């Protein structure tokens, strides 16, 4: 009888509190299963799985919209997950990414068979489900579970591309390195679990405050090793400097749509998880000075990671001949810049300034939101050009683009200027927000570190100018190359293969369907529109950041 009422009460809370906040995830799961089942029926089978997926993401995005402004911090499923505006923001962002991703996949189909299409749809939905859980993690189990849920489908997504030798190499490297990173992460988590005897993150923060002053030297050592192991696991997902090596290889071998997923959803979710791990240390009023040492340790680690990542990414992008590889280094550099607000967040918790913390988090959020559209444009372009020509060579794909495809060329030039971060384009807003967070961090705390970070950010803006302008130069004033773009043969299933080998502008023309042109143009014009109206987005970001503290 007792057990029965417990179960009943449990079911009731699940139904009344947990599930309504879990609708976006539920929606993804239903869509995932639905797409799998639809393959069994003859008539439904005719609908493109990508369109179905777009619908699923659209509905998931709608559900996430509801909590965007007002959702207070609520723990669901007995503390495993937490839902607040921050969660909703990321759910919405990832749904948006997924939606555009589905459109892109639909417009530019990277696989030849229908069943492979369904596979991609299912894997993408599953990986997005993983990222949804990553941003709402509140428990050690969920950290590992969600990271794996996002990673394992990604390994497969990388390998799902028209038969190419390199693809298998890229996915094998990704899978092996990814598994190593998650193994190290898990060991770190197990040590944390042992040290503080709890797996619930806020409780753990409480325990740290309680136990840390009395810890022995060996225990502190163990604690920092465990912390470093967790950081390694997350840094791998963010592709921060010493753990970035998978990124260029995977980006080169995977299809552009998957690159978009990896650069926005996967990295964004890992950054959100970073914030979820850091934020609990600030929500307690009681003697936060005890944690200064930990925060100092963390901010030094993050500063080293961030500075090395952004500088390395920008420097390594020079001398790349493959557009996709260059974009991989560009995303590494941007990820490095995105690590910097986390240091401001740590400092804000140090001096318990809520305003500063909110500013830091919202700068990261608006950066991701704007970066989505910039990357979407770039990867839609590489999908149409590089993937279909089976060559990502910069010169072959970009030279003289302005004469062949003026609309697309102008959009891409705008996007590239946006990636540098020049007004009046949206990329500037992102950069401005990050720099603003760093400056306010400096003025609030007086820590010289921030001046150094500002300097690094400024110098890197100038460094990045070189390779983005190089691309622009090729687009605008290098005449088209005349040599054939493809040297090896493809599977004869696709119609494009017949013209391959005899290069002509006709062939390039056929790659840009009207839909793709519209998508790239949308992204190009969004750089201007988002710049004019960024207050609206920033307000949403502020709300999301507010709900954390």
């Amino acid at each position, binding site marked *: 009888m007792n057990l029965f009422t417990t179960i009943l009460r449990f079911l009731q809370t699940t139904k009344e509190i947990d599930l309504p906040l879990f609708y976006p995830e539920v929606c993804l799961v239903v869509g995932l299963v639905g797409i799998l089942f639809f393959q069994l029926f003859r008539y439904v089978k005719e609908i493109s799985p990508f369109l179905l997926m777009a619908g699923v993401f659209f509905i998931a995005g709608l559900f996430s919209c509801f909590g965007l402004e007002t959702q207070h911090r609520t723990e669901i499923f007995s503390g495993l997950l937490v839902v607040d505006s921050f969660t909703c923001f990321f759910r919405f962002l990832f749904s948006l990414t997924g939606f555009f991703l589905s459109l892109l996949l639909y417009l530019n189909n990277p696989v030849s068979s229908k069943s492979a299409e369904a596979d991609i749809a299912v894997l993408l939905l599953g990986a997005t489900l993983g990222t949804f859980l990553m941003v709402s993690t509140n428990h*050690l*189990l969920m950290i*590992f*579970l969600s990271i*794996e849920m996002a990673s*394992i489908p990604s*390994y*497969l997504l990388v*390998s799902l591309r028209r038969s190419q*030798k*390199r693809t*298998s*190499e*890229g*996915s*094998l*490297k990704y*899978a*092996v390195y990814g*598994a*190593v990173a*998650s*193994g*190290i992460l*898990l*060991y770190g*988590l*197990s*040590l944390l*679990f*042992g040290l503080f*005897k*709890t*797996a619930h993150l806020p409780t753990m923060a409480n325990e740290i405050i309680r136990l840390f002053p009395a810890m022995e030297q060996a225990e502190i050592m163990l604690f920092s090793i465990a912390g470093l192991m967790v950081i390694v696991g997350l840094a791998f997902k963010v592709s921060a400097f010493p753990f970035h090596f998978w990124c*260029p*290889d995977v980006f*080169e*071998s995977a299809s552009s749509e998957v690159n978009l997923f990896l650069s926005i959803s996967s990295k964004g979710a890992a950054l959100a998880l970073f914030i979820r791990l850091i934020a609990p240390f600030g929500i307690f009023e009681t003697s936060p000075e005890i944690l200064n040492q930990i925060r100092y340790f963390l901010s030094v680690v993050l500063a080293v990671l961030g500075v090395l990542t952004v500088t390395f990414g920008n420097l390594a992008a020079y001398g*790349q*001949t*493959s557009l996709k*590889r260059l974009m991989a280094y560009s995303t590494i550099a941007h990820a490095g810049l995105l690590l910097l607000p986390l240091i401001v967040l740590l400092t804000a918790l140090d001096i318990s300034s809520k305003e500063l913390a909110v500013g830091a988090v919202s700068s990261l959020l608006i950066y991701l939101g704007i970066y989505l559209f910039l990357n979407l444009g770039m990867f839609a372009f590489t999908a149409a050009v590089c993937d279909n020509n089976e060559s990502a060579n910069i010169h072959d794909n970009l030279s003289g683009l302005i004469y062949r495809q003026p609309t697309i060329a102008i959009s891409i030039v705008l996007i590239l200027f946006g990636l540098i971060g020049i007004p009046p384009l949206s990329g500037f807003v992102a950069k401005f927000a990050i720099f603003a967070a760093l400056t306010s961090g400096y003025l609030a705390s007086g820590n010289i570190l921030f001046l150094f970070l500002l300097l690094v950010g400024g110098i890197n803006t100038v460094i990045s100018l070189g390779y983005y302008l190089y691309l622009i130069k090729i687009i605008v004033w290098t005449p088209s190359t005349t040599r054939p773009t493809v040297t090896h043969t493809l599977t004869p299933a696709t119609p494009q293969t017949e013209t391959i080998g005899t290069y002509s502008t006709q062939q390039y023309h056929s790659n840009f369907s009207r839909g793709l042109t519209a998508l790239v143009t949308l992204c190009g014009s969004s750089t201007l529109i988002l710049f004019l109206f960024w207050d609206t987005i920033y307000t949403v970001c502020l709300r999301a950041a507010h709900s954390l503290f």
Partner: protein
Amino acid sequence: MFDLLSQPVTLTHYLCISAFLFTVGLLCMITKRNAIGVLIGIELVLNSANLNFIAFGSPYFQQSTSGIDGQLIALFVIVLAASEAAVALAITFHFYQKYQTIDVDQGQDLKG
């Protein structure tokens, strides 16, 4: 060391074994060039962490506030390790089809 051997089994014994397993797994991942060998290393690392979770979560060794969290995490990790191994093996197979080898050092097409 001898102390540990003569004492009754405590948490420390489990931690030592787990640390040993972790090191062996890590070394295995670093030194093996055969993809299957690397996967074995990964399994060792995951299982060493599992051992930690179970040992830390066990009420027999220390006063724990974590309920059955440790054991539950271990169960989930086992499932995930299995799925991860399945995916990694599938990818390895794919690699084998293309390169006729599972020596990971042979994949040298991606550079720069």
